[in-house]
């Protein structure tokens, strides 16, 4: 039902513990065990994380994300704080009227909403590209792991 509930282990459960010292005899060998002798614990790590981070596809994806996110964050932070700074320290300029009573201050404040929406939409479009790159990374990671396991045998 849910994957959150660990099965209870009680003392009267006599099932041998997987991965315990008694599970597979090392037979005094120094070299790595053949695949069929690996304990469940030794064989369980499904992903070699450092190898994934070194894949060119993964690095390209992270770079592409940062190339969008860092400039976007700098831009919106500067654009947003320009509003209180200008209104606070250049009230004369901000009070200049453009149409009728509508002044620069009001237009600038209103523009903040559209700035936020535009960045959000641009990010959605960029993220569709990131999703494709992510898909490649996940597939490649899965196939590399397959080959990694074959190499062990």
């Amino acid at each position, binding site marked *: *039902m*849910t*994957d*959150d*509930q*660990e099965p*209870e282990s009680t003392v009267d459960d006599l099932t041998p513990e997987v991965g315990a010292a008694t599970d597979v005899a090392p037979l005094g060998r120094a070299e790595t065990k053949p695949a069929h002798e690996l304990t469940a614990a030794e064989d369980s790590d*499904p*992903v070699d*994380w*450092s190898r*994934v*981070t070194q894949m060119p596809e*993964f690095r390209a*994806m*992270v770079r592409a*994300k940062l190339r969008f*996110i860092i400039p*976007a*964050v700098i831009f*919106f*932070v500067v654009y*947003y*704080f320009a*509003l*209180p*700074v200008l*209104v*606070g*320290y250049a*009230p004369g300029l*901000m*009070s200049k009227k453009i149409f*009728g*009573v*509508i*002044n620069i*201050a*009001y237009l600038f*404040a*209103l523009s*903040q*909403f559209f*700035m*936020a*929406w535009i*960045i*959000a*939409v641009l*990010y*959605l479009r960029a*993220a569709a590209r990131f*999703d494709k790159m*992510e898909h490649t*990374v*996940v597939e490649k*990671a899965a196939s590399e792991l397959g080959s990694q396991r074959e190499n062990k045998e």
Partner: protein
Amino acid sequence: MTMALAMFLFFVGITLLITYWAARRTSGASAFFAANRQIKGWQNGFAVAGDYMSAASFLGIAGIIAFQGYDGFMYSVGWLVAYLTVLLIVAEPLRNAGKYTMADVLAYRLSARPVRAMASLSTITVSIFYMIAQMVGAGALVALLLKNSGISYHTAVIGVGVLMIVYVVFGGMLATTWVQIIKAMLLMGGTILLSILVLAHFGFSFANFFNAIGHVVYHEKGVEVVKDFLQPGLRFKPPYGALDLISLGMALIFGTAGLPHILVRFYTVPDAKTARISVVWAMGLIGTFYILTTFLGFGAATIVGRDKIATSGGTNMSAPLLAQSLGGDFFFAFIAAIAFATILAVVAGLTISASTSFAHDFYTNVIHRGTERKPGEEVRVARVTAFVVGAVAMAVAILLGPNANVAFLVALAFAVAASANLPVIVLSLFWKRFTTRGAVFGLGTGLVASILLIIIGPSIMGVDAPGATAAAHLIQSPPIFPLENPGLLSIPLGFVGAVLGTLLGREPAAEAKYDELLVRASTGIGAEKAGGH
């Protein structure tokens, strides 16, 4: 004003039906804490918007604009822009690498017990302060809106408290989410309707509307004044006005992405992509709402007038009075009912985030080192916590009474979220060298700095005007820190604490796990899946 009460009870009835429906579908931890991760993108967008837009936004900002014009509108801008931080930095990595709480991401590669204990403390602090502010607001609202219905402040506080406990205890995250969705729909509907009525009042002419804003007439100390309400400077005055606004902006921009009740929402969707889409939905709703505060606030200033609002309940009554003068008693009742629904939904969201953090972070992971002794124990603890948290909030709200000045509690909640939570979330995701000590120092410094600066600031310290009826300041002496919002100082302090703590020593285990966190947070490999049904 029994009409408002009837409409509100109708809303309560619907939400209780939802709770009954949700309770039958909620079994297991993933269902209780994260609605089985099956909420759709648009639904979560409405739920995020519902969790975020409190009565302070609806009644408070309309009131600030009605009284202080442009400055109030400028104040409302930050509430939307803040979501860019959520969208670009936090939402997707959080969904990919976490399970139920913000601390899941922090504890991913750091030492779980100290980090979770601090994160849980900060989450519960934010939630309870925010909740008390909302409940005092709810009680005070009743006194204004339901004057002749025989409902007292105490009844209102207890009613809100009991309802939020019922939603959370029986319906878990699924019920809480749907309460938010319905509330957000009502709030948007009411705001759009009210805005159209304001425009209709001016013959659907923006020129007429803005001309009226340029010449708002009211009385100040018995003298008639005509002011241009689009002119800045009515609220934020020298010497500290601009700095206070910048400080508030920092708390919003960096705090929203650290608000526990917003962050837990991203665990209710199936994957990071849906989390992203839901933030964009929320931004559409929140942005529309805050743009429309132009009509609500300036509409109240021009159509109702400052003089009348001041004599019939004060700033918070601006939007309801506007509704009354444009749509009569029925519309007044409708808007009043929406205001209650808003408060109720927000406190329910806060309750579930506080109890999730206590049960998952503190009880299971700190006290019992990550193992559930009996199946379902975590959910049971969360339900008990919801009772306790609700009872504490009710008791404090009743002790404080309807006239307490609680606006600073919301400022405090945002300041803690921005100064304690956000620095450690960002550093743990993006800085390989980050350590457990850094996280504990960062959370601690941010939390303590925010609380201390609020205590020595003008919200708590100050000298009441002679002859004031209610004590406005808890400490009668001039404030030591001049700003109402501590963000300007406390956010850098939070970052400095986190960085200094990290530089004190190295943590090879945490560095070794960074690759794993990076891959999982940025690709979603191994992320929590949506549950059955």
